[in-house]
């Protein structure tokens, strides 16, 4: 007996209760309800997933729950049906599990905020829509969740409206997401036109039926490509891929738990999930899959480059998220769905951890987000420091933390991939470079925030404090997950076996390739970290120490100078300029493109409103011209 609807209902009930009755009870009740409901969802998902696991035949590990018939188009019905299979089970666990931790964290983070209740209502609403998105069997229901999470995201970005003097960030997020939705909606209508259904399971049945009986497929290759690309445009918008990534860095205007939950762990991965869910469609179109892989790889490296030159702690993490999402798309693009989802899971752990850690830092520094005004926090914030360290090592890909395993698998899959667009070696090279940059900028972030001298402004120094338990407990749990999550997933291929009913058992890679990739990724991870430590921890003091030990020798002094310059000209400057160039491209080309589209449409609007002169005589003339044209046309 599966209790699928009870996964979704608790947060819904909690949010309704808080919305309608919340004014009569205090923050504690609000918080207990909000967190408890998500915990309950988590437990129910855990239970249902366990029951699913208990089904002996892996192929039949699907459970469904029809709540009611929602609507019907002609003779064709859309029920509100939840489907739990290994994929949605894994997603549910991530959403409710990480979601619960972030809820708990938010209690401490938002305690003094006047919009406490509103915040939790939005957060619960988000969880409801996200669960709807992953549990939906029908693409239309999925789209409801898709739009719903977008709406929540928008509401939460603008949560502190006073801070959003220029609503342009929110506007940008909205415009970009509508472009994505446009693609998605067109894809949806085309799917409907091709299959005459929007139910994923029915689509799959139709296809497998056609293959089994050697019938012509309902879908020409070209049509499959068009559908896949349309849907991918939607995924790009939601998951912040080139060229629709521009909204995500701006979305950091929202409270930090929101960034952790929505803009790192869950919502932005919806695109990856959607492609993984529709993998059978993408299987028909190697071209579309290739596009997904290329866009993913390009985003991975591009966002990593921009991340190098950011000084806002949350902006670094935002670009890092974009980059890691690129990895996931790279994985699903080369057909390694299992590892794409695996990376999604590990990323949810460590990126949520990093965001929450950064939130803890920001909280301690009374809202300071500039990395240049941090430093030396390791003593003052020990829990945050150690957990953040775990997160940094995990994302950098240091063995045996989570990021190493998932990234390693993706790189292997990329290395072995055969796409019609680009060779696997090139994808691998790009992925490896991005891994190097990731390690580098994360090391930089870590050093600038926690190590070295304290550069915090004097007036903020005295009340640096560790956060309350509601904030540190989630950090510790997430740190543990980041540490062991990856190893647990690859232990006996447990994660791959869990998803095997959908994607089949993964092929074992040739050991040579496997070892090579492992060594390379470890090398870049350590290389990147080491280099960043060298630059940002050692370099500032290097000159001093050199001067002290060999101060009596002019030549040494000269050489010291020379070393410094070398650093400056060969490494620091280029890296800096590449980062700045990326940022400039971002600002001047991508942003402008978004603005110009809006401006162009508005200009057209102005032009048209000019015709509306207010003069009724002119209206009559237009009327008459219309009649004349119609008379000419219709004869």
């Amino acid at each position: 007996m599966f209790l699928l609807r009870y996964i979704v209902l608790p947060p819904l009930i909690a949010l309704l209760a808080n919305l309608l009755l919340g004014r009569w009870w205090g923050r504690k009740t609000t918080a207990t309800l909000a967190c408890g409901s998500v915990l309950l969802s988590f437990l129910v998902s855990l239970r249902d997933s366990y029951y699913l696991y208990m089904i002996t035949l892996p192929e039949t590990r699907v459970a469904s729950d029809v709540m009611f018939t929602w609507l019907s188009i002609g003779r064709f019905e859309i029920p509100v049906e939840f489907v739990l299979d290994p994929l949605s089970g894994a997603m549910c666990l991530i959403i409710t599990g990480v979601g619960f931790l972030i809820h708990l964290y938010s209690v401490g983070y938002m305690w003094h905020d006047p919009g406490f209740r509103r915040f939790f209502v939005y957060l619960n609403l988000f969880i409801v829509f996200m669960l709807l998105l992953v549990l939906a069997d029908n693409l239309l229901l999925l789209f409801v969740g898709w739009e719903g999470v977008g709406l929540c995201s928008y509401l939460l970005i603008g949560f502190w409206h006073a801070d959003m003097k220029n609503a342009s960030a929110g506007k940008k997020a909205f415009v970009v997401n509508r472009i994505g939705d446009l693609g998605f909606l067109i894809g949806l209508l085309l799917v409907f036109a091709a299959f005459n259904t929007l139910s994923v399971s029915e689509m799959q049945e139709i296809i497998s039926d056609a293959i089994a009986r050697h019938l012509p497929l309902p879908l020409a290759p070209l049509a499959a490509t068009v559908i896949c690309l349309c849907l991918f445009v939607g995924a790009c918008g939601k998951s912040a891929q080139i060229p629709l990534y521009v909204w995500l860095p701006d979305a950091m205007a929202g409270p930090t738990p929101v960034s952790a939950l929505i803009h790192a762990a869950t919502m932005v991965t919806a695109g990856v999930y959607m492609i993984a869910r529709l993998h059978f469609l993408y299987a028909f179109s190697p071209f579309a899959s290739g596009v997904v892989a290329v866009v993913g790889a390009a985003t991975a490296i591009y966002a990593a480059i921009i991340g190098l030159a950011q000084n806002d702690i949350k902006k670094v993490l935002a670009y890092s998220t974009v980059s890691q999402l690129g990895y996931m798309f790279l994985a699903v693009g080369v057909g390694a769905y299992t590892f794409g989802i695996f990376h999604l899971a590990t990323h949810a752990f460590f990126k949520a951890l990093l965001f929450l850690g950064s939130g803890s830092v920001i909280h301690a520094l009374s809202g300071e987000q500039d990395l240049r005004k941090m430093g030396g926090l390791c003593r003052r914030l020990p829990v945050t420091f150690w957990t953040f360290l775990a997160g940094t090592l995990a994302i950098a890909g240091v063995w045996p933390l989570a990021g190493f395993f998932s990234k390693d698998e993706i790189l292997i899959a990329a290395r072995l991939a055969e796409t019609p667009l680009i060779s696997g070696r090139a994808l691998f090279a790009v992925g490896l470079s991005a891994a190097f940059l990731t390690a580098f900028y994360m090391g930089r972030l870590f050093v600038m925030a926690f190590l070295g001298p304290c550069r915090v402004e004097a007036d903020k120094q005295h009340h640096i404090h560790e956060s309350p338990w509601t904030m540190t407990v989630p950090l510790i749990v997430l740190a543990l997950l980041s540490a062991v999550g990856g190893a647990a997933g690859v232990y006996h291929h447990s994660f791959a076996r869990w998803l095997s009913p959908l994607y089949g058992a993964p092929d074992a890679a040739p050991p040579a390739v496997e070892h090579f990739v492992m060594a390379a990724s470890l090398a870049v991870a350590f290389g990147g970290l080491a280099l960043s430590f060298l630059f940002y921890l050692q370099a500032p003091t290097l000159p001093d120490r050199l001067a002290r030990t060999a101060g009596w020798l002019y030549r040494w002094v000269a050489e010291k100078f020379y070393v410094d310059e070398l650093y400056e000209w060969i490494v620091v400057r280029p890296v800096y300029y590449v980062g700045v160039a990326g940022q400039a491209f971002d600002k001047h080309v991508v942003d402008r493109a978004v603005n110009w589209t809006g401006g162009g449409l508005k200009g057209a609007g102005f032009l048209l409103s000019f015709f509306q002169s207010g003069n009724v005589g002119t209206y009559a003339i237009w009327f008459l011209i219309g009649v004349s044209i119609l008379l000419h046309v219709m004869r």
Partner: protein
Amino acid sequence: MITLQEYLSVGALLFTVGLLIVLFRQNAISILMGIELMLNAANINFVAFSNALGGLTGQVLAIFVVVAAAAEAAVAIAIIVLLYQNLGTVDVEKARNLNG
């Protein structure tokens, strides 16, 4: 021999002239007259067709159009009076506060 065509031509001419009145006069009362002429042009078509088809339906239709024209005129006159009270003019092109 006067046939249907001749009557229809008269109707078309009247319709065109009525149209031009609506277009080129700014005086609300004249515009109203133009509209009346357009309706009358339709009426002569009705009656001519009625005659050609050998039934009375067209004539009845024309009577209804006359009634509707009268009703329209009544409301129009009230609107014109209101326009004059509020704007001090019956020039329709001077009323262009609503635009854009």
